[in-house]
């Protein structure tokens, strides 16, 4: 037994020395943050894409790639922790972590030299305009440095509204095109219990992380744009509940609630109940990402068809703003997630990181990373070279289950280096539902306005954003569920409270940022 142990120890030592020796050989380890969506059976730290990148990029460049798993929905908290602890991966990406704070506090590596020396293809792919989103002057010499690389978004579409096609037929109704028609549809669906005794005509819940994110798509339809200046629009970036007219939107929700057209427990964040209602056919209307009903991970369409034969979802545009005569849709700005190299990354690893990003930007590499292998991930290529007959995640081998948007993170969405192909590809990956998805994207891109972002840190927002959001969630729950005759009192009191917990400071901060011109996004009411 003792001999065995000592043999083992000697072996371990020898192996350790070998790896040490290989490091001296000029090999560099590159640790890359990788989103983990908890796909059953799939291990992001040991997947086909990793092997492919290792073989085709790592080995020739003497770089040992490691993927570090980051849970997708808590990525920002994880990254902040690792940044604070000095243990962040060599190459990171984030949607929601406070990148501006990282920059201000000196936690990031400037990327200019790396980008110029090792990133020509990456530079070309992202483009000057987008790259400038990641630049700011921190050392005060009047020249902006590159602090992060914004990923390029392939599609900026963000909102889809969906209605039950079979219910419309049963009710003998046309697709609703405004609030009144939608209300009528919801009422009829309830009156006739189209989803059985559990009918919930309108699927609605509070997204506690950012309560107004979804809700403003409803309430913006009630905003009187004759009374909104561009400056107000930007100042109220995080407080759409204070826009003139928005009150009526909340009143509408209150009415729906009391007519039992919304789920009774809408405030309890019961995702399971929401999903069940959508797939079991209890629900008649919901809003989500434009491709949501057909997505792999939560396929509301396929599950619904199984539960209720003949049922299906289709896209609809009911949120007409009367003052503009438009069905407003917010869209993402052209930049996706932010790619950063922490200060703790070694010089060698930083070079390796930039080389890796550059390798990704080469079309054939991006194609392989995003689409996988013919015969495994997709059936065949179209004449244009876009994969079609895409295989459902459930039916591919475990190590091929990488989410296409996560692996090649310089691009948010499938990219074929051609605008027309990119647009076609949005729908082509949804085998059997190409037309529905295409229609949904067309709807999502009507009367768009680009989401607001500020290009310098608004300190009040860092200080108060979380408390304001929590107060907004409380406000939302209160105004929707309060007695109708109390609505105005509850609404006014709620607005006052949101103001006192920091919204006043935030609005001032955003207003100043607008006046200084440090903002992005568009104003839908522009004449």
């Amino acid at each position, binding site marked *: 037994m003792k001999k065995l142990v000592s043999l083992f120890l000697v072996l371990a030592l020898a192996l350790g020395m070998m790896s040490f020796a290989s490091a001296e050989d000029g090999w560099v380890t590159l640790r890359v943050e990788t989103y983990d969506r908890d796909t059953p059976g799939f291990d992001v730290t040991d997947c086909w894409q990793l092997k492919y990148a290792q073989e085709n990029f790592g080995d020739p460049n003497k770089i040992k790639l490691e993927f570090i798993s980051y849970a997708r929905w808590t990525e920002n*908290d994880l990254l*902040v922790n690792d*940044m*604070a602890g000095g243990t962040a991966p060599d190459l990171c990406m984030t949607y929601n972590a*406070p990148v501006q*704070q*990282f920059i201000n*506090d*000196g*936690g990031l590596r400037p990327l200019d030299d790396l980008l110029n020396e090792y990133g020509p293809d990456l530079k070309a792919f992202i483009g000057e305009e987008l790259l400038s989103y990641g630049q700011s002057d921190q050392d005060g010499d009047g020249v902006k440095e590159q602090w992060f690389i914004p990923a390029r978004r392939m599609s900026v579409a963000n909102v889809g509204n969906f209605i039950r096609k079979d219910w419309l037929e049963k009710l003998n109704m046309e697709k609703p095109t405004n609030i009144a028609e939608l209300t009528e549809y919801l009422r009829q669906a309830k009156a006739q219990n189209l989803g059985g005794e*559990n009918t919930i005509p309108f699927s609605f819940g*509070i997204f*506690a992380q950012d*309560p107004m994110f979804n809700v403003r798509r409803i309430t913006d339809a009630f905003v009187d744009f004759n009374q909104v200046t561009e400056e107000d629009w930007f100042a109220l970036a995080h407080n759409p509940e204070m826009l003139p007219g928005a009150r009526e939107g909340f009143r509408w929700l209150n009415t729906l609630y009391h007519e039992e057209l919304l*789920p*009774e*427990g809408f*405030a*309890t*964040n*019961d995702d399971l*109940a929401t999903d069940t209602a959508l797939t079991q056919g209890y629900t008649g209307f919901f809003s989500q990402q434009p491709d949501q009903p057909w997505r792999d991970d939560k396929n509301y369409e396929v599950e619904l068809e199984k539960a209720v034969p003949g049922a299906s979802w289709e896209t609809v545009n009911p949120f007409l703003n009367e003052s503009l005569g438009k069905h407003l849709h917010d869209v993402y700005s052209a930049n996706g997630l932010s790619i950063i190299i922490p*200060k703790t990354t070694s010089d060698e690893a930083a070079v390796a990181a930039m080389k890796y990003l550059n390798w990704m930007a080469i079309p054939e590499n991006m194609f392989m990373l995003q689409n996988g292998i013919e015969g495994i991930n997709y059936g065949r290529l179209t004449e244009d070279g876009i994969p079609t007959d895409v295989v459902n995640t459930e039916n591919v081998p475990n190590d091929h289950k990488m989410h296409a948007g996560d692996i090649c993170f310089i691009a948010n969405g499938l990219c074929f280096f051609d605008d027309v192909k990119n647009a076609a590809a949005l729908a082509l990956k949804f085998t059997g539902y190409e037309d529905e998805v295409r229609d949904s994207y067309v709807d999502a891109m009507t009367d768009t306005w680009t989401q607001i972002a500020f290009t310098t840190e608004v300190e009040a927002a*860092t*200080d108060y*954003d*979380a*408390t304001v959001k*929590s*107060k907004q*969630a*409380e406000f*939302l*729950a*209160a105004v929707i*569920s309060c007695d109708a005759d109390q609505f105005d009192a509850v609404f006014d009191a709620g607005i006052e*409270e949101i103001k*006192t*917990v*920091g919204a006043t400071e935030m609005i001032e901060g955003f207003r100043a940022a607008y006046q200084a011109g440090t903002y992005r996004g568009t104003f839908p009411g522009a004449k």
Partner: protein
Amino acid sequence: MAKQATEIKVHQPLRVSLARDWRLYFMMILPVTFYILFCYKPMLGIIIAFEKFNMFKGMWASEWVGFKNFEFVMRMPDFKVALTNTLWLNFVGLLAGFPVPIILAIMLNEIRAVKVKKVSQTLLYLPHFLSWIIIGGMVLQIFAPSGVVNTALKRWGWIEKSIPFLTEGVHWQTTYTLVGVWQSMGWGTILYLSAITGINMELFEAAKIDGANKMQQIWHVTLPGIRSTIVVLLILNVGQMMNIGFDRPFVLGNPQVQKYCDVLSTFVYRAGIKNSKFDRATAIGLFQSVVGLIMISTANLITKRLGEEGIW
């Protein structure tokens, strides 16, 4: 008893006791290291509460700002709400939850069939080992407006409208408290059960011979026998009044009852950690600890004045 022991104890030089009991001291190394590493070393971190903390510069190089973080946090309207809720929920929890394990322990102690006793004990301990995330999911399934209870009651025609277990403030606080009692009551019996085992059996026999019935035995023998345990646990619990776990209020809470479910731990998460304002989070933590220390000292002092043994 304690006094006698100190009188006969002979003070020995450290060298002698080390030589004799080195094995015991050796075994102590591990727990002592644990406390130094995980309890004393992190305490240095409280200086973050007085800094404008820059996570990349670390706590030694960040800018010193004195009490600014405390001022900022305490001026936030939510802070008062969270503080009041923390104290109130803990107080109600203590009131409802403290006697239950005692009663339960006495009841378990009276069970004569060994198997029944073992099985009920195991069943009672079980919830303690469930994560609050799981319990939260169960509570949602059972008590939500469309949950099992409301659906059943409605179907039987007992109620017209759902009972807002989770969506109205007072109902929510009741649900919160009772779920907490349910989760911890079994585990809490362990100390009492061992204390009851320590009671001299002759006392019970004497009581029986004097004609005491079961209730009288419990009242006059069992309860006085575990009195010191009860007092110690009460002091410890009072010391915890300012502390509240994060998972339970976070998982059970929802925006509709925000004013009733927001407590210091969730407030710290929101106002400190989520905004990556670690300095403010530390300030609230330090405030909690200081108040907790004051409370536990006061409780200890009062018990001592009342003639009981304190915890120090």
